[in-house]
């Protein structure tokens, strides 16, 4: 969001990102941004509601008015805490900042040229295979499946390769 206003011959402006939180499966680092002045608290609970970690974070400026926060989650004993499927992460940056960690997977055997996987339901996703990027949307169960060979979105065939050059 960019905001401008003018006073006399002077123009004032600000650039901000809508508050968000980003978390990765089995990674204890959380990133995001929040409104300036927000008391930011993040909680990670397991599927039973038990607290795994609660941390506070502050944002640091990176470009004009854009600020990000980055915080690592640890338990009371100082051990890193990793979000896994079934955990729920909440952040005070917005009332809807609640992320239920999905069951996730990604497979792409070169023998079939078919990429299958699973993440959150009804979300847009991008899969990079080698240097190509494929876009789609998961179904209501969080599953997706498409053929690398017959991917119509790119209008051309793509064959998965074994080894690092074919990493997805």
């Amino acid at each position: 969001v960019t905001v401008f206003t003018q006073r006399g011959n002077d123009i004032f402006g600000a650039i901000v990102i809508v508050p968000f939180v980003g978390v990765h499966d089995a990674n204890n680092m959380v990133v995001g941004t929040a409104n300036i002045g927000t008391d930011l608290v993040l909680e990670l609970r397991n599927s039973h509601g038990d607290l795994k970690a609660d941390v506070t974070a502050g944002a640091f400026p990176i470009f004009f008015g854009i600020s990000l926060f980055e915080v690592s989650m640890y338990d009371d004993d100082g051990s890193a805490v990793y979000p896994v499927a079934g955990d729920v992460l909440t952040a005070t940056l917005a009332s809807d900042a609640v992320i239920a960690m999905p069951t996730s997977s990604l497979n792409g055997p070169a023998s079939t040229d078919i990429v299958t996987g699973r993440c959150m339901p009804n979300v847009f996703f991008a899969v990079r295979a080698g240097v190509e990027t494929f876009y789609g949307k998961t179904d209501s169960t969080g599953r997706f499946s498409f053929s690398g060979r017959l991917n119509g979105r790119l209008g051309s065939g793509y064959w998965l390769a074994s080894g690092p050059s074919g990493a997805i």
Partner: protein
Amino acid sequence: VEPQIDRVANIIEGSVAPNSLVLAQVLHLKTLKKMTTFQLDKMSDDSGHYAFDTTGRSISAAMTR
């Protein structure tokens, strides 16, 4: 000038000089490939407060890239 954003209520608000024109541009990622730009303008009130409610913004009023 820097706005506070309520992403649940779809409100962008902040403070500038009283009775000033405020222009806002919102880049909205509809998908991972499509981005829509919304242009908004409003006058701040006598106290300098401004607020934009982006609820139900018409796609036809925006530019899609």
